[in-house]
């Protein structure tokens, strides 16, 4: 009880954060309350589309978290992996005329081989080095993968049609008078299924347990006979799988192009908010950013313009930087992120 009260103390950082959050939420609810029916459905559409975009951010962030937890490597190349996978998938389909059912598993094989090569030629030699060195190595990896993708498939924007339904969802339109893009819904469903499957995998399988063991204590994991090299190949393959899903979904929405690797930059604030070591954190962080930036774009922009008496057009690009500001605010108050694993310290 006293604990809860202390948390609301406006003089303490968590208190300020909570109050800000409450104010933000209150404002959002207020909008809902005062707006007429058409506005409400517009707001709902915004939130839904934010959630759907957020699932994609979660997915990319998840790839980061898995690698970071199991090897302490901050994998800069995660975004490029999505591009790389997208390029191969669209290449197999357009240049070789394969159906998605063959092209996607084939791309997965490519990603596993990539993981093995990365372990064999990069990680193996850098084990036990400073994190910053490993980080630099992944920057190098990013360029190598980007180069290979370019070399093999060329650099123009590619269409990627994996046969997911697209257009407005009639069902949502009829029932609730909402405009929802089918493609976004299917992408979100696929991502959600993948996330659930990954969580179940790490939680309940022997390999999943080993992954978590390695994340906790390398030496102890070695001592019970877990081979770190095998685990790293597995983790990078999973990250490849996640990247493949993200690449294909994103590619289906806006074509496979080199800017795809930039989604990794959006994953960064997601990680800062969710915490670098938390799988649920990555998911919730992604959703917060997804919804937050859409809502900020639509509502916060005009409000701020009002506030400063400025031209509303000056506040139209909030979507681009909102995530980073939010991440900074979280970092100020909770450096380990909202869900970052507490370091267990016994007294």
């Amino acid at each position, binding site marked *: 009880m006293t604990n809860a009260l202390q948390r609301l103390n406006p003089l303490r950082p968590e208190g300020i954060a909570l109050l800000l959050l409450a104010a933000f939420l209150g404002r959002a609810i207020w909008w809902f309350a005062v707006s007429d029916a058409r506005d409400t459905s517009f707001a709902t559409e915004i939130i839904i589309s934010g959630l759907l975009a957020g699932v994609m951010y979660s997915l990319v962030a998840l790839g980061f978290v898995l690698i970071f937890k199991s090897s302490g490597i901050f994998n800069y190349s995660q975004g490029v992996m999505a591009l790389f996978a997208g390029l191969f998938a669209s290449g197999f389909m357009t240049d070789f005329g394969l159906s998605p059912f063959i092209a996607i598993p084939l791309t997965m094989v490519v990603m596993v081989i990539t993981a093995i090569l990365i372990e064999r030629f990069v990680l193996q030699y850098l084990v036990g080095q400073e994190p910053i060195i490993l980080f630099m190595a992944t920057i190098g990896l990013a360029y190598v993968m980007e180069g290979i993708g370019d070399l093999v498939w060329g650099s123009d924007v590619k269409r990627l049609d994996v046969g997911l339904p697209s257009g407005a969802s009639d069902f949502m339109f009829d029932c609730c008078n909402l405009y929802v893009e089918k493609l976004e819904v299917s992408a979100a469903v696929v991502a959600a299924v993948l996330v659930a499957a990954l969580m179940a995998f790490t939680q309940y399988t*022997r390999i999943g347990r080993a992954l978590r063991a390695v994340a*906790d*204590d390398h*030496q*102890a*994991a*070695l*001592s019970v*006979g877990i081979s770190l090299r095998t685990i790293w190949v597995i983790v990078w393959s999973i990250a490849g799988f996640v990247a493949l899903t993200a690449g294909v979904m994103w590619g289906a929405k806006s074509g496979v192009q080199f800017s795809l690797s930039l989604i990794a930059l959006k994953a960064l604030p997601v990680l800062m908010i969710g915490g670098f070591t938390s799988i649920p954190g990555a998911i919730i962080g992604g959703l917060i950013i997804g919804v937050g930036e859409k809502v900020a774009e639509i509502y916060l922009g005009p409000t701020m313009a009002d506030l400063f008496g400025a031209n509303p057009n000056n506040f139209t690009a909030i979507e681009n930087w909102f995530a980073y500001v939010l991440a900074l605010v979280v970092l100020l108050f909770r450096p380990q992120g909202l869900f970052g694993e507490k370091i267990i310290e016994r007294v």
Partner: protein
Amino acid sequence: MSLTQPESTQGAADAAQTLLEVNNIEVIYDHVILVLKGVSLTVPKGGITALLGGNGAGKTTTLKAISNLLQSERGEVTKGSIAYRGEKITELSPADLVKRGVIQVMEGRHCFEHLTVEENLLTGSYTRGDGSAAIKRSLDMVYTYFPRLKERRRSQAGYTSGGEQQMCAIGRAIMSNPEMVLLDEPSMGLAPQLVEQIFDIVKALNEKEGVSFLLAEQNTNVALRYAHYGYILESGRIVMDGSAADLRENQDVKEFYLGIAEEGKKSFRDVRSYRRRKRWLN
């Protein structure tokens, strides 16, 4: 002070089989720090062998040289050989050794703190390929030896007490179905009563399950009561060995390791002279 008067159990086991043979190994860390300067020891099947010595004597290094966990600490065996059941094991990975039945319980317990106690135990069975039914039987077996772990099996290991973590670490090793456990300082930081309890379980595992132990300990007193045979390590060299009963009665061991001085305290110089005498005697 030699191998000439083995204790009865030791003698029988010795005749039966030598599991581990460490022959004159030298270990260097970071290519320059010489830590072990020619250590030799043997562990018989079915015995509890103690490796005794003070801080920095090289006990942990010896165990890690055997289990091959040295590599990940930039340590290297530069001379000598280590054989398990006659097979040279210096080139094997820790995982290969676990599969052959040699597993180390590291100093300071090293439980996986975000895993539950039961998940910790199950990671011990990672290398086993004999099916989930057999693993379940091992788990039940571990729980009968450590009832405390059964009570705590759903708790995160990081939040359990030091004694429970030590039990968890030993139980985890037992889950690999080992023939030999390299147990590094199980008494560290535990209350005397808990130390007794843990050693009793080690003894039971040794007698009932036939697990052999190589036990590194600073706590000479307790270790020599439970072990069959002991080696004393000082600055990277074995300076004395003998059956546990002999070591317990030995005047020098009493003075320097058990803290039972006969005629007042001895100074560090006497320790030196003891070592010279020892070498001369050999």
